[in-house]
């Protein structure tokens, strides 16, 4: 293929990938992408950037809409997006090694949210050192714990109630062998989880508490939008403490696009110790 044709084809690769070209132009690009190695390589690179842009939410609104209405309509292309999300997560994990706290590392909750954490009773750093757990306004002696029914869910992150504890979990990088450990003291009725996200690509999020022994989801939040917050995105959910037995758990976060496509965003493993 002549150099001018190649350059021309390269300029058209992005609209070609989004099927925005008229037939005659699309056919020219098609021939180039099949028979010209250089253009085929460029097509891959442009497609990677496009998919990454969608995952990282850097596409402009028009491109994003087209991506969701056309590109995501094919199972083969959805599979590419899925792989790209995993790939980027692995890359960010590798890039962040040594710069960011390790998986599950202690991240203090911020007082700006009005959680009277610092005024609260205790801060417990467990033996693993991977999790900071804060107790807020624990009831004084004899006050009954209000255990929420198993099926309860939240439409939006509720205000922290008395008898609750809170913890922050970072995206799993799979570099840590032991999951963070949670100790639920008597009298605690809810555990608020703040599940930090690598990105905020989805229109809605849902968290499910999974028992890995049975692989059953024992509790699920409703779909929610992310609250506006400084310092990165996070899904915040209150899990009834009564559901948490001494064992391993996983909180699985699912994201839903505006087109209704659902993807697994991440899993946050932790274990509960006996009271």
């Amino acid at each position, binding site marked *: 293929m002549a150099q001018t044709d190649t350059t021309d084809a390269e300029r058209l690769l992005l609209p*070609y*990938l989004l*099927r925005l070209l008229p037939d005659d132009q699309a056919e020219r690009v*098609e*021939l180039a*992408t*099949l*028979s*010209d190695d250089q253009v*085929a*390589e*460029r*097509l*891959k*690179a442009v497609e*990677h*950037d496009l998919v*990454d842009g969608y995952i*990282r939410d*850097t596409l402009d609104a028009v491109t994003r809409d087209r991506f969701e209405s056309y590109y995501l*309509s*094919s*199972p*083969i*292309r*959805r599979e590419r997006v899925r*792989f790209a999300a*995993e*790939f*980027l*997560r*692995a*890359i*960010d994990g*590798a*890039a962040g090694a040594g710069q960011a706290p390790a998986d599950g590392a202690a991240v203090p909750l911020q007082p700006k949210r009005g959680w009277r954490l610092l005024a609260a009773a205790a801060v417990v750093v467990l033996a693993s050192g991977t999790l900071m757990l804060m107790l807020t306004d624990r009831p004084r002696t004899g006050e009954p714990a209000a255990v929420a029914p198993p099926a309860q869910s939240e439409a939006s992150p509720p205000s922290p109630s008395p008898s609750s504890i809170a913890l922050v979990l970072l995206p799993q990088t*799979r570099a840590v062998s032991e999951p963070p450990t949670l100790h639920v003291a008597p009298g605690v009725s809810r555990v608020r989880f703040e599940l930090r996200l*690598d990105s905020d690509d989805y229109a809605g999020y849902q968290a499910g508490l*999974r028992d890995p022994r049975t*692989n059953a*989801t024992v509790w699920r939040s409703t779909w929610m939008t992310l609250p506006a917050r400084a310092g990165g995105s996070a899904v915040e959910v209150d899990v009834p403490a009564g559901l948490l037995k001494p064992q391993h758990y996983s909180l*699985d976060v*699912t994201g839903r696009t505006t087109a209704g496509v*659902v*993807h*697994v965003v991440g*899993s946050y493993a932790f274990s509960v110790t006996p009271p």
Partner: protein
Amino acid sequence: MLTDEVREEATVTPRGFQRLLDWLDDGVASHGARYLEIRRRLVGYFDRRDRPAADDLADETLTRIARTLEREEIATRPPARYCHVVARFVLLEDIRRERRTVVLDEPRLDAVSRANSADHRDDEAGATHERRLSCLDRCLASLKPDRRELIVEYYREARREGIDRRRSLAARLGITMNALSIRASRIREGLAGCVEGCRGTRTTELLRRGPIGLSAQRR
């Protein structure tokens, strides 16, 4: 959705498959890599034309070429150009076939719907996801340090300083931005192949069976 008539044609002897591999290599032994690359391009071609059975149609294209090669030489160069010609015929036939059968072919819609549900179930289960993450880690760790460093640097979160970082990476390596993007993309594709291999999926199987296995599968 291919007809019985097509199924009958869709057979290639091992000799035909070998001739196909040699022809695609075009004088440069690639040990099957070229076949996989052309097949990947063909799948992309059919997929972008909204063909639900893009994999089958890519195999169909290569099968026809292999059968031609069993009978005669193909003079067209590069081979991929000839693949495009055949692929267009296969595409048009598939579109015609779809038009003829669209009313009675509701199972196809069901299949798509089932596939979407299956996607969702997979997501929910998370087992596949976990397996792939584990493979991805393993494959990433197995890269040579300089290649690993390149893709980490190239693809890491780039919201703030991405372009500058890529530019300085290209300068450090003494290559253009265009060459850098292609180099990073190649490593990434290699990683995807490694993940598939790690999961015991596609690549090895595709090379083992060629388009021949497809006909056995359809029968």
